């Protein structure tokens, strides 16, 4: 059993490594364009709301705490506590997505969505209009893929919750809870980096 547990954990880490490379490519490309067009980048920062970003970071960190406590409960064989913590994790995960949706709506109202045929207007600083499109594309792809991972994560938690309700876990067998927890924490880590890179940089020097 111990060996099975270790193999499953290792397998999850290997999967997370592929995820690191997936997000890493986007982080790298984003950094290069930010270096190429620093003024255009600074001009976009006024449309990012760092308070929303900070709130979402806090919400995700709480969800990571409830997830970690859920895994702890699973290890101790406390089934009721595990189910309760899974529900909390899902609630905070959904809260994150709701806040994100409000943000996307704000970008839509601001005409800052250069996707789907272009809901785009940058007449405030027309000299940066084209470069700012690149940066908003990065913003939507990075946060969009992250949000997709959150949706998948909530789906996994739902599955684990029903598995727990059917009494599939015990003190001796909780591997699915453990590896789902690893995934959830990984998605949290991605956001820990997205938050400063997308919301905080250039926040002190807002230029249009």
């Amino acid at each position, binding site marked *: *059993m*111990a060996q099975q*547990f*270790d193999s499953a*954990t*290792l397998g999850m*880490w*290997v999967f*997370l*490594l592929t995820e*690191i*490379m997936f997000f*890493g*490519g986007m*982080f*790298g490309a984003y*950094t*290069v364009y930010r*270096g*190429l*067009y*620093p003024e255009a980048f600074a001009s976009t920062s006024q449309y990012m709301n*760092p*308070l929303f*970003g*900070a709130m979402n*970071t*806090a919400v995700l*960190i*709480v969800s*990571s*705490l409830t*997830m*970690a*406590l859920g*895994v*702890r409960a699973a*290890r*101790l064989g406390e089934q009721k506590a595990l189910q309760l913590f899974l529900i909390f994790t899902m609630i905070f995960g959904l809260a994150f997505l709701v806040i994100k949706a409000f943000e996307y709506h704000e970008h839509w109202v601001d005409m800052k969505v250069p996707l789907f045929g272009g809901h785009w207007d940058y007449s405030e600083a027309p000299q940066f209009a084209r470069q700012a499109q690149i940066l908003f594309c990065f913003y939507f792809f990075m946060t969009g893929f992250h949000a997709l991972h959150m949706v998948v994560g909530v789906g996994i938690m739902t599955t684990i919750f029903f598995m727990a309700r059917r009494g599939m876990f015990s003190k001796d067998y909780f591997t699915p809870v453990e590896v789902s*927890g*690893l995934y959830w*924490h*990984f998605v*949290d*880590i991605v956001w*820990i*980096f997205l*938050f*400063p*890179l997308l*919301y*905080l*940089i250039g*926040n*002190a*020097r807002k230029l249009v």
Partner: protein
Amino acid sequence: MHSVPSVRTYVTIWAILTFMTFATYYIAQIDLGQWNIVIALLIAFFKMSLVIFFFMNLKAESPLTKLFAAGGFFWMILLLGQFFVDYISRDWMPGGKMW
């Protein structure tokens, strides 16, 4: 199989993570020039380490898992390192200085 960390440990880590989140939020409002991004990323790395070592409980995992986790970061550094070395060493970039 594994030692189980106490609730107290988890809550302490959560409190530090939340504190660092708001610290980085407020520090970002002060104009520190180039240092803004350095400090923001240092805080992010610190938060990531806390999540990996405590929430993901990497310190209790097998040596092989630890090796794989370290390997992931090694490849990531290779990827981003080579990426940036390429761009930094081009003196014809439109933005002039990359950083």
